[in-house]
């Protein structure tokens, strides 16, 4: 077995990024993700990489755009209000088909909100975050080990599909410490003949661009991009199922909400209630298939979220509203307890509504 080290989630992201060959990090200070930048500031200069504290989130994402244009692995990290500022850049990255990794260690909102954990940027992340038609690949880790694994996977998927991959974590995932193994096999990095690295006077010039003044050309770009998204949906959807086979009640939860819910599921099973859980690991593409399947036997779904109910809409869409879906939530930086989730389960099991 590979050696394990005890790390904070934020540090695991930074170390995994370096492991994946990322040598350029741009960021701006914001709680609760500061450890990512602090780690990069320490390590990057020692390994010939670049750590640069940008003047703003906007500048940071555009520095990412510059490095991504040159075909190198590059990342930025922030938390909710900072991600809003990066929205413009996320749209341009998508419009120019550039691979990059963006980390959102979410905190409560809206506005300046708070600094405690939240999942209330689900809509923003899964619907793109900026203007225009596009998606990012959104990965939701539920342990420090997954913070590391999905960071590496994020770089690989970004390169493979020329998309931005976003790690949608939360303050708990960023701050908690767990043993991590960083012993991953890496996929080979694909060729990037489109990169702007200088013509060397040996080819036509490359152009990285998202401007198409002719609407038919812009339309074609959008249609082509969505064909690529279909391939991502078919090949890269990830989720974990827990005790769903015979479940009457199925919980949907990701990230820290899934950790809490698992305890509640175990307790409910001890009480004889048939409960299971589907944990989406990719939030986009959303794992529709296990929900469709579960809707064939389940009598109810419960979406457990650290928000006012955002993923619940995707659960309803995936189950085509055939079965009632209720919300079990806290918001604003509060975290549901296993007892609260168990109460939600009991209410549904007794024929009530949450």
């Amino acid at each position, binding site marked *: 077995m590979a050696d394990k080290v005890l790390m904070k989630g934020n540090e695991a992201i930074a170390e995994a990024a370096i492991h994946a060959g990322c040598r350029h990090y741009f960021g701006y200070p914001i709680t609760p993700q500061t450890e990512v930048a602090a780690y990069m500031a320490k390590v990057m200069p020692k390994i010939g990489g670049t750590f640069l504290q940008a003047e703003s989130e906007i*500048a940071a994402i*555009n520095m990412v755009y*510059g490095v991504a244009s040159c075909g190198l692995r590059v990342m930025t990290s922030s938390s909710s209000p900072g991600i809003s500022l990066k929205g413009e850049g996320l749209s341009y990255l998508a419009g120019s088909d550039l691979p990059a990794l963006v980390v959102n260690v979410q905190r409560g909102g809206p506005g300046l909100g708070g600094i405690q954990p939240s999942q209330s940027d689900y809509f923003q992340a899964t619907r793109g975050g900026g203007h225009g038609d596009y998606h990012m690949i959104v990965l939701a880790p539920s342990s420090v080990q997954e913070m590391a694994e999905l960071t590496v996977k994020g770089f690989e998927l970004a390169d493979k599909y020329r998309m931005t991959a976003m790690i949608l974590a939360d303050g708990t995932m960023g701050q908690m410490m767990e043993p991590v193994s960083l012993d991953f096999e890496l996929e080979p990095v694909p060729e990037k003949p489109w990169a702007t*690295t*200088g*013509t060397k006077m040996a080819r036509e010039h490359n152009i*990285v661009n998202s401007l198409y003044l002719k609407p038919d050309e812009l339309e074609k770009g959008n249609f082509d991009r969505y064909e690529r998204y279909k391939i991502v949906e078919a090949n890269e959807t990830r989720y974990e199922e827990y005790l769903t086979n015979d479940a009457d009640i199925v919980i949907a939860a990701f990230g820290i909400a899934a950790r809490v819910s698992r305890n509640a599921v175990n307790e409910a099973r001890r009480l004889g209630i048939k409960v299971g859980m589907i944990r989406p690991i990719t939030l986009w593409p959303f794992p529709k298939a296990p929900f469709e399947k579960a809707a064939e036997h389940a009598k109810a779904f419960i979406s457990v979220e650290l928000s006012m109910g955002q993923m619940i809409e995707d659960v309803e869409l995936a189950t085509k509203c055939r079965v009632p879906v209720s919300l079990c939530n806290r918001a604003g930086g509060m975290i549901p307890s296993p007892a609260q989730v168990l109460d939600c389960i009991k209410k549904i099991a007794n024929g009530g509504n949450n």
Partner: protein
Amino acid sequence: MVVFDKPHALLDVPLHYCPGCTHGIIHRLVAEAIDELGIEGKTIGVAPVGCSVMAYDYFACDMIEAAHGRAPAVATGVKRADPENHIVFTYQGDGDLASIGMAETVHAAARNENITVIFINNAIYGMTGGQMAPTSLPGQVTQTSPYGRDPKLCGYPIKVCEMLSELEGPEYLERVTVNNVKNVRNAKRAILKAFKNQIEGKGFSLIEVLSSCPTNWGMTPSNALKWIDEKMIPYYPLGVYKDRSAEKEVNK
């Protein structure tokens, strides 16, 4: 024998600029500098949002189109991706560089980022049809200052070279214009120096070029060139605002 020819670094395609606009001249000067320094194969240009948004179709080197005002941040990424082998320039108008992108401009200068910035100051937003720019002159009539720019309501124009010259960071700041042959030759010298500085690793060079916009100024091309002499140069004096290497030479 000297044969007048198009620079290699400028592609042989029609430009979309209005008649009498000086973007074409400045494109040519940049391309000539790239040719003379033999750097086309390692140069990456960053185009702005504004009239020169499609500069990526005109320069033969690799090109990137940046979001509005973000060219210096994008250029920072491109330079840091391969500092030894990338020559990076941005080409930005006054709205892009001195309004929406002011933070990116100031901080790239403060970091002495080793890039070359070509700053086109024509005192107006051209692409969107002639709105007031951060560099529009007091009293200047534009679509969004129809009674003339009133400094009491919308402040004073920003003198970019003067402002940046107070920073420790930047290597080289010069304001030039291209409204006559003598000034064009002088602008060429400055642009060439701005690229040489980068090759020599000296850091951030910005060349501000006072430029004309006959269409949105509502003037004939020749009157527009006169307006640069009569109105713009008195407010935006030409000259070198910072040359750190020369200062060091003097202080030896």
